[in-house]
């Protein structure tokens, strides 16, 4: 039963000594083991370290010490470096990579007392929207295991959905927090670019990557984010700005909040069942006192093609470091150095990662740089300006997080463009660097639907506040698949 409690509730019960972290962690570890054949949400399970950390948390709590997250069970997406525990990034390339250091996010959550139960499955190098590109096998959606959980943070979303852990870290380069959160019916927040340190977060596309949270509720996400966010001198793009107390003020009324309904997101690609859920959610927000009006972002239709220039370009550069020399996979008996590079990389990377590296190499190559890369960066500017204009008129933007609910495993692997278009509603927030969330708002044929909230730079608190108020009125976020209830 305790697995059904929210992170907020568990943190309070642990502090009140109503339960012990060891007892809680044992329960969760049992649930993780039992779920692996069906869900495959974890790449590594760190039972021994987790029990040690749980004991330490119990001791601290007994003394009246322990951080705000003392003793609560969490997991890390397997692209956050964890000292002494392998970090694979979902790739064969890093199958045996044991990070010599902790990512800042890992360090901060550890300092807050959270207990890490393992490393979560993901699309290889965070490139994918279905978790099917993982070298460690796909994750299955807990609502229906024939369906994808979304990606790339599919393990994070599935594990929180099935209540194997209370919350998980995740990352979002083009929708990798919000899309799986939507498809699994959980709450996900991608903060403003620079809000959460990227130090120790394995790079995919550095001008878009941002770490965040997947949790069962906005309140839980606020509690996690408060510990994760903040300036880090080790990340040169980390923003030196104070972090508000995201938990405080969640209860305030929504009256007077101006919400823009994103016109272009209600297009012909949006499934009618999803649209029905989104429209109902909008009426709940209106009932809560928010003022709704339609807002247009005219350049937003160019988001996906712009992204598929910028992200692969940065990826091809970032992934050049995997050369089989200093760490990562190395091929057997290389003939010479070129052969070492080529075979190590070709054996270590999967097909989607190779396609993205090659797309990036192509758009950055002589004669194409201006036509593709610079052009995409100019389009990016137009999209960012659209958001800036919109946020001059409204406080938040809302729309669907995804065009459809979860789709069957294997159904979209043949055509990369079909897969890329899953992120049609999420990518623009990354291009503009603005914070965005997905929260559960209903079901389409038995599968969860996500409502997306987008805010101006550094408006995480506003997003969490609106999401929390919505969750006080609705119970979609409390639904758990029967099999895992």
């Amino acid at each position: 039963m305790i697995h059904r409690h929210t992170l907020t509730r568990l943190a309070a019960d642990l502090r009140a000594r109503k339960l012990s972290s060891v007892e809680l962690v044992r329960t969760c570890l049992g649930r993780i083991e039992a779920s692996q054949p069906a869900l495959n949400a974890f790449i590594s399970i760190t039972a021994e370290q987790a029990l040690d950390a749980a004991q330490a948390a119990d001791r601290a709590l007994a003394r009246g010490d322990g951080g705000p997250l003392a003793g609560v069970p969490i997991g890390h997406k397997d692209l956050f470096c964890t000292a002494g525990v392998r970090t694979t990034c979902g790739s064969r390339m890093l199958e045996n990579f044991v990070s010599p250091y902790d990512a800042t996010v890992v360090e901060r959550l550890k300092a807050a007392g959270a207990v890490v139960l393992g490393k979560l499955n993901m699309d290889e190098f965070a490139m994918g929207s279905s978790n099917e590109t993982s070298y460690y096998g796909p994750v299955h959606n807990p609502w229906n295991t024939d369906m994808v959980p979304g990606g790339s943070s599919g393990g994070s979303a599935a594990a929180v959905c099935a209540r194997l852990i209370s919350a998980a870290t995740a990352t979002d380069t083009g929708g990798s927090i919000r899309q799986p959160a939507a498809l699994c019916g959980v709450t996900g927040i991608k903060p403003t670019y620079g809000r959460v340190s990227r130090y120790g977060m394995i790079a995919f596309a550095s001008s878009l990557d941002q770490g965040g949270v997947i949790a069962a509720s906005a309140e839980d996400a606020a509690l996690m984010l408060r510990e994760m966010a903040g300036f880090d001198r080790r990340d040169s793009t980390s923003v030196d700005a104070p972090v508000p107390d995201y938990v405080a003020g969640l209860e305030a009324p929504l009256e007077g909040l101006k919400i823009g309904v994103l016109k272009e997101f209600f297009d012909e690609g949006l499934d009618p069942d999803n649209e029905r859920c989104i429209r109902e959610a909008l009426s709940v927000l209106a009932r809560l006192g928010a003022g709704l009006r339609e807002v247009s972002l005219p350049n937003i239709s160019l988001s996906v093609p712009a992204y598929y220039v910028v992200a692969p370009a940065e990826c091809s550069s970032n992934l050049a470091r995997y050369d089989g020399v200093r760490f990562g996979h190395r091929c057997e008996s290389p003939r010479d150095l070129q052969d070492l590079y080529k075979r190590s990389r070709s054996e270590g990377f999967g097909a989607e990662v190779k396609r993205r590296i090659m797309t990036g190499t192509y758009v950055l190559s002589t004669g194409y740089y201006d036509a593709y890369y610079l052009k995409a960066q100019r389009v990016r500017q137009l999209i960012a300006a659209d958001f800036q204009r919109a946020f001059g008129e409204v406080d938040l933007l809302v729309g669907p997080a995804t065009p459809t609910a979860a789709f069957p495993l294997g159904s979209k692997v043949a055509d990369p463009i079909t897969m890329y278009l899953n992120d049609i509603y999420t990518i623009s927030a990354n291009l503009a660097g603005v914070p965005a969330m997905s929260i559960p708002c209903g079901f389409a044929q038995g599968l969860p639907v996500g409502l997306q909230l987008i805010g101006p730079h550094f408006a995480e608190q506003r997003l969490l506040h609106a999401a929390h108020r919505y969750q006080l009125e609705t119970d979609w976020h409390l639904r758990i698949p029967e099999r895992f209830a």
Partner: protein
Amino acid sequence: MYDFCTDFRFLDGTLMALTRAQVESIAHLARLELEPAEIPAFQDKLSRIVDFIGELERADTSGVAPMAHPLSGLSQRLRPDAVTEGDGRELYQRNAPQVASGLYLVPKVIE
């Protein structure tokens, strides 16, 4: 090296696939070695991607500055040029495929 500066589209705008040679050349630049049997699949999928990103052409971006950083008002921070990290070579080399006497080993480069 292959000259990429050719038009991949027919005059009616339909997609002209990347050639096998082009795909092999891109793979070489990316230091990837594709199996001969997998090249057609890469040709097909990369052609679709190139076609898709070609949509950007229709955007009017005259007078628009390229955006390299999502928080445009901010400039990159600099740090003092001071040593902050200790020697972690031994620790780092635990992940290396092949080392000897603290050096990373690769196949002979100079004959």
